[in-house]
């Protein structure tokens, strides 16, 4: 279930913590597996548990607590838009509305072609750059006016 490369990356994370504290690497391990597989299936969670010597339910508890883990399949591009107050004052909600209209989906929905999933996000710590959105948890896009949103969508083939 875990690729060789994922295992190596997880082992590098385990080495950051005291030898008897492998569990500390669980967040990173889940992020690594999600990055590779797109989402966290029950099998993936069990494989992480096995690799770290944890009970599967303890791994599931972590996976279901933190917002950036996906426990169901998402589109090829997951776009999370911050609509919290500081962003909303500078167009965060309007940017989300614009995306909904362009993609024809609401929050937590995926386009029929499986390309985009839209999510509503909480504060990303980038309020000065509003509107901000995060693509696949790793790419932060700042100052997303209609023109910038159009070109972002164009890039996501």
């Amino acid at each position, binding site marked *: 279930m875990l690729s060789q490369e994922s295992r190596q990356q997880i082992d590098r994370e385990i080495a950051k913590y005291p030898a008897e504290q492998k569990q500390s690497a669980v967040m990173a391990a889940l992020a690594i597996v999600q990055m590779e597989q797109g989402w966290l299936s029950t099998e993936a969670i069990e494989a992480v548990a096995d690799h*770290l010597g944890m009970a599967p339910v303890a791994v599931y508890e972590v996976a279901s607590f933190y917002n950036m883990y996906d426990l169901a399949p998402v589109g090829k591009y997951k776009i999370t838009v911050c609509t919290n107050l500081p962003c909303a004052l500078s167009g965060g909600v309007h940017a989300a509305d614009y995306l909904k209209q362009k993609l024809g989906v609401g929050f937590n929905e995926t386009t029929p072609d499986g390309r985009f999933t839209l999510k509503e996000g909480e504060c990303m*710590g980038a309020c*000065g750059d509003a509107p901000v959105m995060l693509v696949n948890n790793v790419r932060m896009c700042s100052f997303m006016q209609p023109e910038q949103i159009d070109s972002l969508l164009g890039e996501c083939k």
Partner: protein
Amino acid sequence: MGTLGFILEAAEGERSWRLAEYVKRGGYDALKKIFSEKIPADQVVGELKKSSLRGRGGAGFPTGLKWSFMPRQFPGAKYVVCNSDEGEPGTFKDRDILRWNPHMVIEGMIIAGYAMGCQRGYNYIHGEIWDIYKRFEEALVEARAANLLGNNILGSDFSFELQAHHGYGAYICGEETALLESIEGKKGQPRFKPPFPASYGLYGKPTTINNTETFASVPYIINEGGDRFLELGKPNNGGTKLFSVSGHVNRPGNFEVPMGTPFKDLLEMAGGMRGGRKLKAVIPGGSSAPVLPADVIMECTLDYDSIAKAGSMLGSGAVIVMDETTCMVKALERLSYFYFEESCGQCTPCREGTGWLYRVVHRIEHGEGRPEDLDLLNSVTDNIMGRTICALGDAASMPVKSFIKHFGAEFEYHIQNKKCLVPEDVQRAGSGFFKVS
């Protein structure tokens, strides 16, 4: 800006985040000074106490005092933890510090480790800023290669290892004990205190947690002295401070100014009000701080004491500016949703109460408010505040209480007229997203 910024402004220029550039501007001099002058740990803590540096994460607790709580002589493992889990709406300063000046944080953490007898440290970095996390990891690689981390740092008998831990989307992990639980590989639910982290912290060992900006302030204090740092600000409010300005201003961003700077000067630095519109309200210290009406904030200086006297908190220095296009009910509705969404669910008053707050504000905003709703909201906040393990319950309550206190008439208008005092098209124009045709 012509300010005295030593954290961000000093780090302008190309590739400012690289070790070589940091060293060029005097980086790691403080650490070298400690080793070459054999400055004892107590003296480092003493210098911090003199500086009047107060925790930059929001609580404003005196850093020197916090460090003195650590049982230096405790024989086992001890930890230094940096809280870069910046998710308080309105706050975005730590991201810029780590982006432009990561080594200053690393140097501050090494000095902290030395002063408190810790052998290991972790920097917990907010989940959504992946590129910043990667950059910090690169800075760690540079520091290790230069023997600034690892065994016998720079030939001294002090050894210290530092790692980055990447969060994955949970506001509550900004609470220090939730953050420790999270590093331990669990869901981030705050611990009951006492015991405090200084006696029972990460993996049950003595631990000190400080904010990113707090650590970044340490090298300056060692190089220039605590007195000099204190002089940058005002008594009991030492130093300069980063203020994150967001919302209805022309130039949102971070501004590094001396503590005690008048609010109106900061507003000017941020380019003034967008579209020249009128200031309505400001949340001066991140979304958890009580909101202040325009006339009150315009008379404030930016320091812990002045803002507290005005009835709010300096918090993390996140200044959320709202102009006359803002519907205060809608603004509060969004904040209340945030706390409802982010409550960890551990304490009943918060888990249930934040849901009540959101649902009641939501129904007022959507024209379904009842005459008794404002009393109901106040009663719910009274039943949350002071009854939870951590401060999230209070953080959810303070916006509600203060919005009703200062803008109660707007809430009553909503309830009576089932619509907003500020017309929809005016609100829409306020965000600047849609070009005016």
